[in-house]
């Protein structure tokens, strides 16, 4: 594919800028959580892994490979990147990690050696997860079978192959803060808001991004781009209402993949539903609906 020279030149300048910034070694932002009184529950953690859709990326072959032992390369406009083995295998998985290593990966996008992850791993959303959910998830991951298969290598084009760029990216665009419920709304709506913006990472595909992959909170869910570079529809209350979605339709679609006009959601959304949403409790799917459609009467 031939790229217009102006885009290449501009991309180069942007990259040069980022490199300069990263050389300045600004410490990327990080959050600290209070772990006192928090103990993980593996069973709940399995449920959190469904909320987070970890399987969709970290398991091979449509969920048929060994659980969480590494996924197929995800194609991005900058090359391919594979979700690694996160089973408790000491050599090939994360068996030698501590809970704090795990929390730093999920909540701060930071690897044990201090380097930064690519945001294809949706930590910008996971950063909003509750401390309890992270603890539960960690407890669960310790109970799955360790698998000794090496993770696949990333195959990114230069300059995106330079991990140090991600450090600068975080410094510029990453604000790790825990989800805060909106006191103007009730528990159900807020549960939905938590799932959508946190573990459910819906915005990673459905929110528009700036040129450097930064998201704009004011335009959340207005339609974005999937990891494969394809456009993803808007799911704001207004857009859904316009497309004919009413009460009951979102929860139904998140279970059976069927839209109000009888079409079946496929592609990346088919995977999100197959590996995540359809395994949630009906209450959680309804909470997502209450939040997305901004339904009245869900404030109590």
């Amino acid at each position, binding site marked *: 594919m031939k790229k217009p020279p102006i885009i290449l030149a501009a991309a180069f300048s942007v990259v040069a800028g980022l490199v300069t910034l990263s050389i300045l070694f600004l410490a990327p932002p990080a959050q600290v959580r209070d772990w006192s009184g928090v103990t993980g529950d593996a069973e709940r953690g399995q449920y959190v892994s469904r909320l987070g859709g970890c399987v969709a990326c970290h398991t091979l072959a449509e969920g048929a490979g060994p659980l969480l032992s590494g996924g197929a390369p995800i194609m991005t406009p900058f090359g391919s990147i594979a979700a690694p083995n996160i089973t408790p295998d000491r050599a090939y998985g994360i068996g030698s990690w501590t809970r704090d290593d795990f929390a730093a990966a999920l909540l701060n996008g930071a690897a044990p050696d201090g380097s930064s992850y690519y945001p294809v791993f949706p930590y910008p959303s996971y950063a909003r997860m509750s401390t309890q959910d992270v603890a539960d998830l960690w407890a669960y991951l310790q109970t799955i079978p360790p698998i000794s298969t090496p993770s696949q290598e990333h195959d990114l084009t230069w300059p995106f192959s330079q991990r140090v760029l991600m450090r600068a990216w975080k410094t510029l665009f990453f604000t790790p803060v825990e989800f805060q419920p909106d006191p103007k709304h009730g528990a159900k709506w807020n549960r939905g808001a938590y799932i959508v913006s946190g573990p459910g990472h819906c915005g990673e595909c459905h929110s528009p991004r700036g040129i450097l992959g930064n998201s704009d909170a004011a335009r959340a869910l207005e339609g974005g781009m999937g990891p494969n570079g394809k456009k993803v529809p808007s799911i704001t209350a207004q857009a859904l209402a316009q497309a004919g979605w009413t009460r009951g339709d979102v929860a139904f679609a998140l279970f059976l993949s069927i839209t109000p006009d009888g079409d079946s959601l496929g*592609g990346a959304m088919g995977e999100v539903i197959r590996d995540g949403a359809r395994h949630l409790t009906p209450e959680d799917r309804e909470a997502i609906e209450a939040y997305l459609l901004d339904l009245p009467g869900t404030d109590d």
Partner: protein
Amino acid sequence: MKKATKTIGITLGVCIVAGGALFGAVQLQAHEGAMGVTKERMDAMKSFGEAVGAMSDMIKGKIAYDGARVKQGAETIKTHAGEKLIAFFPEGSMDDHTEALPAIWLDFEKFSNLAAELQINAVALEAASESQDTFMPAFIDLTNTCTACHTKFREEQED
């Protein structure tokens, strides 16, 4: 430094938006201009959508359960599934309007199996249409097949 980055960002953004607008214009014409075998399969799929949409409304309680209508919908799907559906996808039948992915012909065996499975599930749905209780599990099996195929072999909607 930050300002320069911003200017470049805006320039790039404009290029991308312009590109996107062009792309959008092309996309708008999709469906309207489809012809021949692509049109035939889109029409078949649309009839599936209508049938499944009505059944969904019954489950959601938006309309009352209507066994005869379920039976009729299942029949529509049955007659266009299997070999018939496979025949709608001759090798490389892609035009500007299609949402079919080239993956179909890279793994035609899997695609054909799903088309066959659709027919089996439509037959089962037809048989289960008598009561809402037997209908539900058959409907889930059927829609799982729609989704399995769309997830692997169909391009996502744009908006």
